[in-house]
C-alpha cells in the first residue's frame, strides 16, 4: 500500500509516521479501551507520540469536542460507564487525538442505535468539513454511504470494481445489484418512478427525494384549486 508516496511494503518504511498520519479506527473500537478515565484513554496515543502537558490536554479537549463529547463532564469518568454510542465516540477520539490527516473507520456505526448512528455520522461529516480530515469509511451500509460519502470505491474479492462520485454510483440500479448491494428504500422509490417514466434523479436523502417528486412528478398534476 502506498500512503502519501511512501510504500508500506518497503522494509524500514517510516511506519510510525504513517500510523500517526493515518488514524485507524478498527471495528468495535471500544474493545481496545483499557484506561481508568476517558481523559487517559484519549491521551494514550498522543502520549505514545511524545506529546505532553498543555498540548496534550488541548488535543484531548479538541478530540472530544470534535466527536461531540463534553470534555468537562466526561473526562474523569471511566470509559466503561458510558453508553455504547459514547464509548464508540471516545474510541474514535482516542485516535483523533493523534491529529491524523486521514481517518479510516471500519464499520463505525455497527451495533449502534439509530440515534447514536446519526450523531456519529454527523460528527464524521463535521470532521471532514470543519477540520479538513480525509475520512475513509468502510461500510456495508448503503444509507451511511449515501448520507456522508463524496466518493465511493467498491471492492469485490480484493479488487476495486468501482471508483467514482457517490451520485454516479447510486445512479444505476443494475450496477449496484451486480455488486450485491441492495438499494435503500429511498433509491428504490426513485428507481420505481424512473421505471414509470419520470426522470427522477437518485436521491441521497429523503428531502432530496421529496424535492425530486415535487418537481418532476407532481408538476404534471393540475394545481390545487386553492392558490398558494
Amino acid at each position, binding site marked *: 500500500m502506498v500512503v502519501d508516496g511512501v510504500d508500506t511494503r518497503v522494509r524500514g518504511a517510516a511506519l*510510525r509516521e504513517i*500510523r*500517526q498520519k493515518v*488514524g*485507524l479506527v*478498527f471495528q468495535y*473500537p471500544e*474493545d*481496545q*479501551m*483499557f484506561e481508568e478515565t476517558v481523559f487517559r484513554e484519549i491521551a*494514550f*496515543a498522543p502520549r*505514545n*507520540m511524545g506529546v505532553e502537558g498543555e498540548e496534550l490536554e488541548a488535543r484531548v479537549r479538541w478530540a472530544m469536542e470534535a466527536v461531540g463529547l463534553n470534555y468537562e463532564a466526561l473526562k474523569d469518568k471511566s470509559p*466503561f460507564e458510558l453508553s455504547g454510542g459514547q464509548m464508540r465516540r471516545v474510541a474514535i477520539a*482516542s*485516535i483523533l487525538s*493523534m491529529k491524523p490527516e486521514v481517518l479510516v473507520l471500519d464499520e463505525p456505526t455497527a451495533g449502534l442505535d439509530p440515534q447514536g448512528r446519526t450523531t456519529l455520522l454527523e460528527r464524521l461529516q463535521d470532521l471532514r468539513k470543519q477540520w479538513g480530515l480525509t475520512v475513509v469509511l468502510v461500510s456495508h451500509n448503503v444509507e451511511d454511504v449515501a448520507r456522508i460519502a463524496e466518493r465511493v470505491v467498491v471492492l469485490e474479492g480484493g479488487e476495486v470494481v468501482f471508483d467514482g462520485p457517490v451520485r454516479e454510483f447510486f445512479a444505476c440500479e443494475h450496477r449496484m445489484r451486480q455488486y450485491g448491494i441492495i438499494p435503500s428504500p429511498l433509491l428504490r422509490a426513485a428507481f420505481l418512478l424512473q421505471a414509470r417514466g419520470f426522470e427522477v434523479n437518485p436521491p441521497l436523502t429523503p428531502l432530496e427525494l421529496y424535492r425530486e417528486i415535487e418537481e418532476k412528478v407532481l408538476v404534471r398534476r393540475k394545481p390545487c384549486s386553492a392558490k398558494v
Partner: protein
Amino acid sequence: MFGKSVVIGQYIPLDSAMHRLDPRSKIFFVALGIVTLFLVQSWLSFALLGGFFALLALFARLPFQYVFKSLRPLWVLLVLTLCLHVFFTPDEVLVFFGFLRVSLGGLFKGLFIVARLVLLVVATTLLTLTTSPIELTDGIEGLLSPLKRWGFPAHELAMMMTIALRFIPTLLEEADRIMKAQMARGVDFESGGFMKRIRGLVPLLVPLFVSAFRRAEDLAVAMESRCYRGGIGRTRLRVLRFERRDYVFLSLSFLVFALSLSLSWLTW
C-alpha cells in the same frame, strides 16, 4: 507475535485403528507408558518400547514426520540435557575440549535420558495426534467419573477443559486484533527494555481480559438458555464404549510394558 501458525491440538483426523479406539484406553495407555518409561533402565527395553510405538504409529497411519514434528519444540531441551550429561559426569575422560571433558559414561547417560524424553513425547503424541480434543476431554471425564461419588466435579472439569480449548483460537485472534489496534495508537510492543515491554502489555491484556469476561458471561447465558445445568441427567451424543479392539490394544500394551520392565530388570 501471534500468527495463524499457532496450532492448538495437533489432532490429525484420519480413519485408522488407533483413531477408533476408545479415548479412555488411549489415555490409560499413555499413563502406563509414561510410568514404564521412567522405570525401565536398559537399552533393550527402550528398543522394545520404541518398536512398539513405531508399530502403533504405523497402525494409526500417521506419517512419521508428524510424530517427529512434535519433538521440534523440545530439541533445545534435548541438546541441553545431552550436553550437561556429556560434560559434567565424572567418569573416565574420552576427549578434552579445552576445559570441558567428554566422558564415556556421561555420553551414555545423556543419550539414555534423551531416548527416554523422546519416547515420552512420542507416546503422548500418539494420543494427541489420534484423539480429537473433544474425545480427549470425554475420555478424561470417563476416567474421572468414578470419583464423582466422593464429590469430585468430573463433568465440570471436562466441560471447563472443552471450553478452554474451544476459546484458545478465539482469544488468540482477539489478541491479534487488539494488538494491531494498539499499534495504530502508537504502542511499540517490540522495542524497549524489559520493564517497558511489560508495561506495554497492559493495553493488550486489559482489553483482552475485559472481552474474555464478557464472552464468558455470554456463553454462560447461552448455555443456560439451552437448559444446561451441569452433568446430572445429561445424555451424550457419543457414548464411550469399550470394544473388543480396546481390550486387544490394552492387553497388548500391558504385555509390552511388562516385558520391557522385566527385560530391564534382567539385563541391568
